């Protein structure tokens, strides 16, 4: 993922280029915003798709309300989708949009602050009636008040033009207006010279059973496109060219973190030669993984929508006991409920992959917002001395590889393990060079064979310390396991004091053994020693990457270290960090990973913490780096 592309930088410290050049842009950030019912997520996804198909690099950030469909016109019902695309490696969805598409006053109100000074606002004047203005909390129409004077405002009566474009299909007014987003999409596709064909294909598929709806949407799409082409709007609404990125050759697709995670788990199960049994209970933003895997039955994937998170993990453990790859997935509150059962999986030494799609906490918190605040829970959150490996995915496409690594660890070490992702990763999309599955190293598990003489369930591999996996159905290996302390050899219940000490030590030693089996920590950018190491983990990869890149471009002595193996840490970590004067740890939490580094290495850390449900801004990070370097 980290390729060193020399390139020019925006001066405001963000992962985007000011849209000052009209004809050829290096990168552009567009935010589509409207009512939950306006279909902004679909619009954004389709724009992304068309853009990706042209070989432009991109990153996206969908941001939607907790409400399913809040009442029309309210500010809390505004749904937004931001895309940053360009002619170079794009690492984040961009700090500030260049273009804001606001489908109603509420969307304008909520998103205007984010827009870059001098940016462009496209508004649907048809939705700026008194009722909507009031609902959005505007006393005065912002289109008339002068509030928008710092921006290029393009006022279009999109509602009316949409109605016009679909009138031949005889839809009700309400239904016809639903195509507004496609009209807008058509216009934006024209503006940035993208093709409509993939959108048309998608509409035909989606509305296969209601061809008149498909036709109307396509008509609106075409009308928007045609409007751009025919309307004599120069300058402000002229066509822009965004160059192609210099991306590696290969076959690409767009992928979200949730998709990539599902593919990675299936790939991992195939490499381990196991079937997957996912036990899960719906919860935002983790449900998507359940949905994805429920569609992969043809790959031997069984999904169980349990009655709750406890049943979900217990079923997954039961499946592992019976010889499947048990997987369970949830987010913070649901993972909390699984705590007791994780202890059982540790005690019985069964493989299990636990996926936590983190969201804003504590408690119900901010379910649709992103955060990294479940790291403590992952590393420490259990009763007893109960160590467990933890790894974190850092980008949508990288979830695939993180998932494979999770399966490898769980099966090789006979241990439950936690894979951290977050709401941002789950929903964000990026172009993904499709990996060649055949080049991935398989790690098939071997169950104990039938009728072994002197079989003992808790005998173990000398290197990994992973115990025997003997599954029900195998003659001659009948045995019993449970959560009471077990004899280190037979696995029978043992209350002996020495045995408990031995087993406690063994559980710790297993983690140490894994520590010797994970790759040494590498450096993403910069030198192996220097003034500042910016140490991150998880989905902050993009903003940190760009921030360090910019700081380095300014000549600062700063390096980026991004950690996948949270627990145990890579063996060279201490040495690596000791080569820097300052260790800066940016996290979307109150300093949780920093606690681990401090405890383990007794090094002081400079914590940069942001807990507001939003990804870091590149410019903020650059500013913090400058404090140290």
């Amino acid at each position, binding site marked *: 993922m980290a390729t060193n592309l020399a390139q020019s930088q925006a001066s405001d410290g963000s992962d985007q280029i000011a849209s000052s050049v009209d004809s050829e842009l290096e990168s552009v950030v567009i935010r589509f915003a409207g009512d939950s019912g306006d279909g902004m997520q679909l619009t954004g996804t389709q724009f992304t798709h068309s853009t990706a198909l042209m070989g432009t690099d991109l990153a996206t950030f969908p941001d939607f309300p907790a409400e399913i469909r809040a009442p029309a016109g309210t500010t809390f019902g505004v749904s937004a989708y931001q895309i940053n695309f360009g002619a170079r490696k794009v690492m984040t969805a961009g700090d500030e949009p260049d273009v804001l598409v606001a489908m109603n006053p509420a969307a304008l109100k909520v998103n205007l602050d984010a827009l870059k000074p001098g940016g462009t606002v496209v508004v649907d004047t048809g939705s700026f009636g008194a009722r909507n203005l009031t609902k959005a909390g505007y006393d005065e129409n912002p289109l008339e008040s002068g509030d928008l004077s710092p921006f290029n405002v393009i006022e279009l009566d999109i509602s009316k033009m949409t109605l016009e474009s679909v009138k031949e299909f005889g839809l009700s007014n309400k239904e016809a207006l639903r195509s507004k987003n496609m009209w807008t999409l058509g216009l934006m596709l024209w503006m940035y010279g993208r093709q409509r064909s993939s959108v048309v294909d998608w509409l035909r598929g989606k509305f296969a059973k209601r061809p008149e709806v498909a036709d109307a949407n396509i008509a609106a799409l075409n009308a928007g496109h045609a409007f751009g082409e025919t309307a004599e709007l120069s300058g402000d609404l002229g066509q822009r060219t965004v160059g192609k990125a210099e991306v590696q050759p290969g076959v690409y697709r767009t992928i979200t973190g949730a998709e990539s995670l599902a593919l990675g788990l299936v790939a991992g199960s195939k490499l381990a030669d196991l079937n997957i049994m996912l036990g899960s209970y719906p919860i935002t933003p983790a449900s998507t993984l359940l949905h994805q895997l429920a569609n992969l039955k043809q790959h031997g994937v069984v999904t169980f929508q349990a009655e709750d998170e406890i*049943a979900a993990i217990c079923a997954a453990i039961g499946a592992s006991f019976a010889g499947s790859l048990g997987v369970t997935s949830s987010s913070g509150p649901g993972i909390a409920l699984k705590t007791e059962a994780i202890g059982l999986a540790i005690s019985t030494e069964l493989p299990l992959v636990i996926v936590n799609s983190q969201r804003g906490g504590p408690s119900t918190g901010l379910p649709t917002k992103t955060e990294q605040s479940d790291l403590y829970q992952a590393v420490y959150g259990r009763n007893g001395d109960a160590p467990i490996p933890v790894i974190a995915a850092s980008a949508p496409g990288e979830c695939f590889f993180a998932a494979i690594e999770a399966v490898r660890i769980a099966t090789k070490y006979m241990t439950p393990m936690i894979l951290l992702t977050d709401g941002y990763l789950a929903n964000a999309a990026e172009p993904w060079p499709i990996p060649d599955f055949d080049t991935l190293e398989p790690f098939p598990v071997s169950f104990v064979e039938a009728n072994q003489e002197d079989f003992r369930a808790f005998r173990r591999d000398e290197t990994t310390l992973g115990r025997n996996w003997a599954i029900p159905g195998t003659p001659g290996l009948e045995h019993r396991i449970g959560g009471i302390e077990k004899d280190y050899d037979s696995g029978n219940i043992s209350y002996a004091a020495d045995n408990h000490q031995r087993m406690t030590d063994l559980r710790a030693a297993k983690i140490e053994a894994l520590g010797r089996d994970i790759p040494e920590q590498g450096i993403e950018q910069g030198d192996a020693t220097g003034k500042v190491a910016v140490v991150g983990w998880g989905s902050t990869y993009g903003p940190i990457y760009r921030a360090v890149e910019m700081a380095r471009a300014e000549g600062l002595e700063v390096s980026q270290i991004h950690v996948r193996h949270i627990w145990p840490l890579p063996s060279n970590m201490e040495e690596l960090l000791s080569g820097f004067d300052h260790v800066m740890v940016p996290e979307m939490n109150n300093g949780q990973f920093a606690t681990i580094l401090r405890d383990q290495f007794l090094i002081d850390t400079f914590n940069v913490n942001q807990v507001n449900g939003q990804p870091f801004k590149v410019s903020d990070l650059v500013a913090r780096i400058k404090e140290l370097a």
Partner: protein
Amino acid sequence: MNELSPKKLTAKDFATDQEVRWCPGCGDYAILKAVQKTLADIEADPANTVFISGIGCSSRFPYYMATYGFHTIHGRAPAFATGVKLANPDLDVWLVTGDGDGLSIGGNHMLHVLRRNLDLQILLFNNEIYGLTKGQYSPTSRPGTRSPSSPTGSVESSLNPAAFALGSGARFIARTIDTDQKRMPGVLARAHAHKGASFVEIFQNCIVFNDAIFADFTDKAVAADRQIFLEHGQPVTFGKESQFGIRRTPGDLTLEVVNLEEQGLTTDDLLVHDETDHLLATMLVNVSGTEGFPVVLGVICCNPGESYDTQVSTQVEAAQEAKPNADMKELLYAGSTWEVS
């Protein structure tokens, strides 16, 4: 199947070398014996049999069965069993639980495993008390029960496990008594034969914390008059000389006890047990043991439907047949792709 052991196994072959750790005189011993006999009777394959339990005295059960076993955590055994069956539907799963494990902390999993009709046998050891934690009242304890946590008597209504199971959609309900070594194996074999979730409530005496709580119908002296053992298709009689019976109260939606001779009735006048009738089962478990009514035992309800695990497997197989060539490459390349060269 274990091809190496063609020799017929006896009850003893299902015992492990682990020392049995219940209190001397505990009803659990008798149940263990009956279960081991049942497995021999049905010619169970130890390699293919899994006992799963939660936590409690009763939940120690798997350690004493020479099969596969999983002593899990409190109340969650049905969920583990679900995972086991989804991973390998060919396994024969028995679940052992107590009134605390299965109906207090584990009530929800019990509800859902019954509703889904997972194919397994659930043995609920009901001793109306928390044994392992030293005698607190449980959801099946009778109101007024004095215990360490209810020193002035419990003020909770007691749950009727069979009625709860029926309300949860159970399709097989049976009841038996720890000491009834003669009939228990037959009841358990029926539970095993039923494909789907089979719920068996076993009245179990906790000699330490709740001794003789079932004596009013299990004592030898009163047993015949205080127990009905149901048989499908047979008129419902009881008493030492089968002198009593149950019939529908004429003109009412209720059941009543009759004395055949005294009331000049014959067995033709009596209710004929129909185990496929869910509503009759509900009635029976609701009147069972109430004023003047004996306790209803045996197979109360057996009305099979397709099991959850079978249906899941069917869907997986259908998907695999529909896409016989589903491989990782196809999956990775699904949807729109583009090439950069």
